[in-house]
């Protein structure tokens, strides 16, 4: 059971959270302008990396807020948690020393 650092509530057990999939997939402001291929890429294609992975969580049985995290998907170690809308902290990119 992971221990996840909610930006508002601090460290909380994973059962209070709901995973929200890959982060930084902003919904295009003008979906109508996208080709079917571009729209399919937004909907379905995912990096699914083995290593640092920017993902979304929601502290659903807690403060209810969504936030982002970078977790190494090989060791399940969290490198950072940061508010929704914020940029991915440097030093947590794929290939950065985990």
């Amino acid at each position, binding site marked *: 059971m992971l221990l996840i650092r909610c930006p*508002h509530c*601090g460290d909380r057990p994973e059962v*209070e959270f709901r995973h929200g999939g890959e982060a930084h997939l902003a919904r295009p402001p003008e979906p109508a302008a996208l080709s079917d291929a571009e729209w399919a890429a937004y909907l379905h294609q995912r990096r699914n990396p083995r290593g640092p992975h920017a993902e979304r969580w929601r502290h659903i049985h807690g403060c*209810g807020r969504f936030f982002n995290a970078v977790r190494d998907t090989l060791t399940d170690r969290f490198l950072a948690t940061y508010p929704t809308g914020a940029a991915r902290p440097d030093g947590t990119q794929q290939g950065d020393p985990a």
Partner: protein
Amino acid sequence: MHENSVIRHAGITLRALPGMARFALRCAPADAPRASQALGLDLPLAALTASAGAGRAALWLGPDEWLILAEDGAAETLPPAMEDAFAATPFSLVEVSGRQLAYGLSGPGAEEVLAEGCPLDLSDAAFGPGTCTRTLFGKVEMVLWRPGPEPAWHIEVWRSFAPHLHAHLREALLDL
């Protein structure tokens, strides 16, 4: 079942708390002080804290979300008071008096009963007086609030989940 059932075991008491007026208040944190004026007590801005006074309490549940507990009469008086306090500033006040019920669990070692289903560290150091949070008890969501220094807990749970939560707490208490 909920009326006034009281269970006592090993110096710990589990009882249903009487009905009260409840509101879900949501607004931008910056506008929260306006609510304090209508409420008659300071809305807590620090995470996971509650403020109480004059028979009322305000529990911080999220950065823009509070649970207000008040005397029955407040169901009529508070909404207009809030309207005035906020005036043109956007906010959301929704009465939820009927949505949920409350239990009291008190007595030395009461946190051991909660530990049967709640994954949080409920020691004094980690969950001191005035702390509150939404969390889980087994498969049911609850709001847990520790008003004061004594080992006494206030538990809010949605009405349809109350029988399950009560039965689970009861079995945990009797097996302590």
